[in-house]
């Protein structure tokens, strides 16, 4: 009896010692998060790479076929168009988001009444689920009933309705606009926070030294805000490159595959189409950009340290 009580006491002491050991406790506390990420993030990530090398169909285990998927994709003209479009979409949208987002941040970088309210309003496009705002754009871009066409015609600037989604170029522009609309708040709020950390006395000193407002912007604001801008842009780039919702809801990749992104093409080939292997191979083309973005943001984050 005495021996068991002693043993229990010893065990309890050893246990509480372990819990004090920060290495043990650390591992223990991280475990649940790591488990979820391992099973549902890391493993699928690797599995996706593998699937690209197989001919898996939905419901049927596939065989290893080497680079066959990739080879056939590279011969597929649709694939090349999609590649072109994804890059176009990403580059143009991110540039506009960055420029407009930054412009709005500068406009908002001052003290004014209702500052909180305005900030809250500005964030709305980012908050509302993308698919829901996509529905609105879908309706606004309707070739017959678009309010945009109506306004422009009534103002005498146009003579016939715009075919927003039926013409490839128009469709691309329409989607980019919708993407920019959604993305501006992210840039604005992030950059605004950065702008507000810049010590105002820096500007005052520069003004006394004779620098005009453009000079002050170029020599003080830009260099200080650059790292933050780099990080935000990197995030936006990878998310835009891997976009899905907006395009799928509004055009489903059409017309004639003109607005497909890697994500939507992959979905189309894999889910309704059933070609898991091929779909995975398409998705994997997002990887190089992902890696590049990770490296760039890593570099800038380190520099912030």
């Amino acid at each position, binding site marked *: 009896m005495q021996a068991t009580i002693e043993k229990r006491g010893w065990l309890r002491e050893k246990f*509480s010692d372990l819990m*004090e050991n920060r*290495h*043990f*406790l*650390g*591992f223990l*506390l*991280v475990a*649940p998060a790591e488990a*979820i*990420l391992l*099973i*549902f*993030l890391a493993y*699928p*990530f690797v*599995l996706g790479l593998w699937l690209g090398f197989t001919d*898996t169909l939905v419901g049927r285990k596939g065989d290893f076929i080497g680079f066959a998927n990739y080879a056939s994709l590279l011969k597929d003209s649709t694939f090349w168009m999609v590649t072109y479009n994804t890059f176009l979409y990403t580059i143009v949208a991110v540039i506009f988001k960055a420029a*407009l987002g930054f412009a*709005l941040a500068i*406009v*908002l970088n001052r003290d*004014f009444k209702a500052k909180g309210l*305005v900030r809250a309003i500005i964030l*709305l*496009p980012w*908050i*509302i*689920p*993308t*698919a*829901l*705002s996509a*529905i*609105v754009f879908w*309706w606004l871009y309707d070739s*017959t*009933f678009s309010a945009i066409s*109506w306004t422009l015609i009534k103002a005498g600037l146009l003579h016939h309705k715009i075919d927003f989604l039926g013409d490839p170029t128009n469709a691309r522009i329409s989607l980019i606009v919708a993407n920019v*609309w959604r993305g501006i708040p992210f840039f604005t*709020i*992030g950059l605004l926070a950065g702008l507000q950390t810049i010590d105002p006395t820096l*500007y005052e000193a520069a003004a006394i030294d004779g620098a005009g407002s453009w000079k002050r912007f170029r020599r003080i604001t830009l260099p200080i805000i650059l790292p933050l801008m780099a*990080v935000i842009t990197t*995030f936006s780039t990878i998310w835009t*490159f*891997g976009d*899905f919702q907006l395009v*799928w809801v509004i055009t489903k990749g059409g017309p004639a595959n003109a607005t497909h*992104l890697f*994500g939507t093409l992959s*979905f189309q080939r894999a*889910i309704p189409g059933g070609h*898991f292997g091929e779909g*995975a191979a398409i*998705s994997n083309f997002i990887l190089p950009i*992902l890696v590049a973005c*990770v490296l760039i943001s*890593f570099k800038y984050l380190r520099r912030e340290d």
Partner: protein
Amino acid sequence: MHESFWQKILKFYLPLALFIIFLLFPFYWMFNTSLKPMKELYNLKLNPFYIHSPTLANVKTLLFETIFFRWMFNTFFVAILSTAISLSTSLLAAYAIQRLKFKTSGPTGLIIFFGYLIPPTILFIPLATIIFDLKLWDSLWSLVFVYPTFLIPFCTWLLMGYFKSIPKEMEECAMIDGASRLRVFWRIIIPLCLPGIFSAGIFAFTLSWNEFLYALVFISTTESKTAPIGLVTELVRGDVYHWGPLMTGALFASVPVALVYSFFVEHYVAGLTGALKE
């Protein structure tokens, strides 16, 4: 630096007005369209910016001829559960990485952070096979388990920032006072972090509502769909787009997120900027 009245108009009021109109117009349009009867929507002669004969017919259609309520319930279900799972695991992980600084805590933190950057479009196909193998196909539980993959990285990141702001001395003092590490976590750290926890929770909730691809792929039965999916897939019958109910649905489905956001916007912005500062 003084500004004349006209300078102010040019540099502030005008650009601000333009931006606000641009950013808020679609919401107005959502609202506008939901109150218009079908006849008016398709009448090209009318000025679309006015609501000539407002009606609640779209609302009726949405609420009674579709299972909109069911979809909303599903979306809440998934959002609340996945937020709960993510918050709790992130809290523990963030504390471990930021405070305990155990071996490999640096790399672990980085890996978790970069997990946030991986877009779902890379993962949805392999995840589909995994979900199928786990027999979670067509079940909302698949989303409950998968959503934390993008919620946890962000929440962990945000909470790590909050932990950084708590002085180390406070924990050391509590340890000398006799508290075990877990007690310190429970009695000192968490109460001081409540704003951060709050921000993370709100962020997770809105991110969960925003998810689309996984919900589209993993769920096929109409009754199990989430609101955005349901609206987009079920309100287009054949070639007919039911714009009225669609807009109403979009409006109503935006409400929970907008409400949560409007009550807690200060926390949300703090969370976003705090995370970016990291």
